């Protein structure tokens, strides 16, 4: 099952991450790391009106965490804030298209966590993904 993790498109996002880098003057900046494994992720957003105009992310970590971040960045660019706020774990899993074992969920959801932190800093509501895990 796990070897499904490393499908071609996941490796492609890992090796050629979309929207990689940072913005000079982001409206929203957030970062987080996974204390257990040291994976790091930072995300910048440019918000225009109620639209996520631009997204950039930077990070170090495993193929799952970095591919998930790359896919999430593609997903949210151009979306309205309301649409982005509504995104949850299911959306990330759907994009990854693989079954994630419990040991790797933190990798898969690191970018979503960072996105939510950014939205929270910007004063927007976000779903509580930690409670879902229980």
């Amino acid at each position, binding site marked *: 099952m796990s*070897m499904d993790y490393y499908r071609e498109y996941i490796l492609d996002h890992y090796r050629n991450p979309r929207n990689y880098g940072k913005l000079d003057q982001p409206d929203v900046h957030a970062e987080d790391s996974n204390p257990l494994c*040291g*994976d790091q992720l930072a995300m910048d957003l440019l918000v225009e009106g109620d639209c996520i105009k631009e997204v950039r992310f930077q990070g170090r*970590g495993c*193929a799952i965490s970095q591919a998930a971040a790359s896919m999430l960045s593609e997903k949210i660019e151009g979306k309205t804030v309301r649409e982005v706020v509504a995104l949850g774990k299911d959306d990330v899993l759907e994009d990854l298209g693989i079954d994630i*074992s419990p*040991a*790797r969920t933190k990798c898969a959801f690191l970018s979503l966590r960072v996105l939510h932190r950014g939205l929270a800093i910007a004063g927007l509501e976000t779903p509580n993904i930690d409670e879902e895990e229980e």
Partner: protein
Amino acid sequence: MAHVQRTVEEIRADFPILSRRVHDKPLVYLDSTASSQKPLSVIESMNTYYRTYHANVHRGVYALSEEATAAMEKARVKVARFIHARQSKQVIFTRNTSESINLVAYSWGNANIHAGDLIILSEMEHHSNLVPWQLLAQRAGARLEFIPVTDDGLLRQDIYAQLLQQGPRLVAITHMSNVLGTINPVQEMIAQAHAVGALVLLDAAQSVPHLPVDVQALDVDFLCFSAHKMLGPTGIGVLYGKRNLLEAMPPFMGGGDMIRKVGLRESTWNDLPWKFEAGTPAIAEAIGLGVAVDYLNELGMENVLQHEREITAYAMEQLQSVPGLTIYGPTTESRGGVISFTLDDIHPHDLASILDQEAGVAIRAGHHCAQPLMERYGLSATARASFYVYTIKEEIDTLVQGLHKAKTIFKL
């Protein structure tokens, strides 16, 4: 010490877990540096205690309590002899290495470290031998200095000598690195520290399980290690200290068992080692640790070391044959059975996932609780394979096959 030469196959038969399968493949356990597996004798000894003579220790005058107390104190004597302590009262039972180090940092540290005092650590410390000293330095206003690590994973002895000239109160370093496998030249380093009047605490979490350690020959002041990395149970560790130091130190935690006489406003303390063992201890675990020591004694620590040197040399050779693989740390001569590596652009977590699923191989991936060391090498994570008395060459071969499989999956 007399010991029986046994084959690795015979040794493996003593470890029930080694016969289980993982993802429908035989388990290949290469993470003993995180925690070792346990022989049946250790598991059974704790069962026997609970089934036949469980009672609290140092309290009752009835048979069960006397038996439990005798078993626990016998374990203390075994541990003391194992590390060549002069007296068993110099062996304090704690929860683990971290608690042993914290005990010294609080009890000895609060009384002896003052504003401006210097503590020398190294860049290769486990967080356990780093954070307690950061906390002490913050409490006391003390200074921390660090012995740097060379590119090939050795401590910079020239800088250590310079730091000693600044008159440190304490040197707290690891005997053996849990990441690089480096076995540090602690005999010389302790003598040098003593020459300038500094005490030395050794983090021996990785050394006591894997090589002969003689606290008197080393002349070390404090030595800390955990049972679960040396075939024993979790939940029990050891602090060894020189008698004069331990006698002078105030208690770490207050409670039952650590007192002589208690009044409402003040109390006096029990003798060593109980002064530092507040509350009901980990009795079964102490007994299990004693049996783990018996097991290691029967093998002979020289033989344990020799076996690991052979396995490590073989693993170094086999791993170096994998294209794109980078090994961190020193050459085989100055390292124990720990190998940290990376493979091309495959993140160590992905590598560990693939090895687990495809080969049944358990390795560690991450920063190994040594983030400053990772940063020293510009890494966020490595994969780490580690070996023990039950590791066989066939398991190294399985590891290497798994690494090739990972390269295929990652299209390398």
